């Protein structure tokens, strides 16, 4: 395949970054292009697609869950904790789904009454999901995701601790700090806490060999793109701060999408504890938004290849993009259950108006599992 003079590189990822080791894609010399082509064909291990997870060793594996179920069947009471492992985590929806996956398994095994299930989150309130919550029209009334989520937790008998930052995890006990400054301990027999995301620690150099990593990447390791990164208070946040083309801030032939790009700021209102610990969800940008961004950047790359380096780029801002989320528990029309949700747009006008600025529709479908 002929490599265009201006080689276009897309760094796309969901929870991971694929990129070239120790090289900036700005290099446009013939030798640089050849080098890049070779590196893509056989990337070193530290540049391959990867996901960073932080599990509690064997405490979250299927054999461990099965062992806990077996002990519960034998009459033991167990404490299960699921949530996020840091005050700045994102993807609370994944922890939410996993909570109800486990709850489903407990019920299917007939040991639900033997388990105390707790959801531990950095969200300010249930239903925030890292997007500042959702408001929607329900039978003529403005309702919100907080009420809907609390109802589900009550229905399924799940406890919740919100506004929490996990400070440390010892064997069988989680230490956390809350937004009000108080601290607490949560014993567990089985736990799954999501890790905080950060970019892969790679370096970028210009053609002269100067380190330009700080210009290419944010301190979090995510890639700076066409967003407005100027620090500003929550009251001055704007949907216009969010990137549209996902093109690198300094190079026209690098793009960062999904979890790879550095967001300009969170979507939920930022909050800190009295001790200064930031306890606020990072903006979610995996899943469906990543897919839309990936397609958009792919179309941009195709345009650049076909029409030249000055071709107009395609756009897909999260401020004008919708998202769908499906949280399922169990399998099958009669035994599984699922909650589906769509929202538009993902990034709302700031400050959160608390009105129907977005039009999410939340639907709950739980064949054969509803309880009165």
């Amino acid at each position: 395949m002929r490599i265009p003079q201006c080689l276009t590189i897309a760094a796309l990822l969901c929870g991971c970054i694929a990129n070239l080791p120790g090289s900036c894609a700005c290099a446009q010399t013939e030798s640089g292009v050849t080098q890049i082509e070779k590196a893509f064909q056989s990337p070193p291990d530290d540049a391959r697609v990867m996901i960073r997870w932080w599990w509690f060793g064997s405490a979250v594996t299927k054999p461990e869950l099965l062992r806990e179920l077996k002990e519960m069947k034998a009459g033991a009471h167990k404490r299960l904790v699921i949530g996020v492992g840091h005050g700045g985590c994102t993807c609370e929806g994944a922890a939410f789904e996993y909570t109800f996956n486990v709850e489903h398994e407990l019920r299917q095994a007939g040991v639900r009454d033997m388990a105390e299930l707790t959801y531990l989150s950095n969200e300010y309130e249930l239903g925030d999901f890292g997007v500042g919550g959702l408001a929607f029209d329900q039978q003529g009334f403005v309702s919100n995701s907080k009420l809907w989520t609390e109802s589900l937790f009550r229905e399924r008998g799940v406890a919740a601790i919100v506004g929490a930052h996990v400070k440390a995890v010892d064997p069988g006990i989680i230490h956390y700090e809350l937004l009000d400054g108080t601290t607490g301990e949560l014993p567990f027999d089985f736990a799954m806490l999501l890790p905080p995301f950060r970019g892969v620690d790679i370096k970028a150099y210009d053609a002269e060999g100067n380190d330009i990593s700080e210009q290419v990447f944010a301190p979090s390791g995510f890639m700076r793109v066409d967003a407005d990164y100027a620090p500003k208070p929550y009251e001055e946040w704007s949907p216009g701060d969010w990137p549209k083309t996902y093109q690198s801030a300094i190079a026209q032939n690098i793009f960062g999408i999904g979890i790879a790009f550095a967001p300009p700021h969170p979507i939920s209102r930022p909050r800190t504890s009295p001790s200064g610990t930031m306890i606020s969800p990072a903006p979610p940008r995996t899943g469906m938004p990543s897919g839309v961004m990936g397609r958009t950047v792919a179309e941009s790359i195709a345009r650049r290849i076909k029409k030249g380096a000055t071709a107009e780029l395609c756009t897909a801002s999260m401020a004008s993009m919708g998202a769908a989320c499906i949280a399922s528990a169990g399998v099958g029309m009669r035994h599984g259950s699922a909650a589906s949700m769509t929202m538009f747009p993902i990034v709302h006008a700031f400050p959160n108006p608390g009105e129907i600025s977005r039009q999410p529709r939340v639907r709950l479908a739980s064949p054969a599992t509803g309880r009165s």
Partner: protein
Amino acid sequence: MPTDANGSARIDSTTEAIANAPLPTPRTLRSRKSIPRQIVRFCSFNARMLRMVAKGHH
């Protein structure tokens, strides 16, 4: 049950909010279990997602 730094049981506003949250009515639970209704909603939801994907980029 979570405990505070002194080992006392913690009952916060979230616990209270969950305890006071509305529960679905028997009619709602029946509709959730209705397979024909869920099939219709499944199709509707997928159509909505396709529309979002189509409108999500320019």
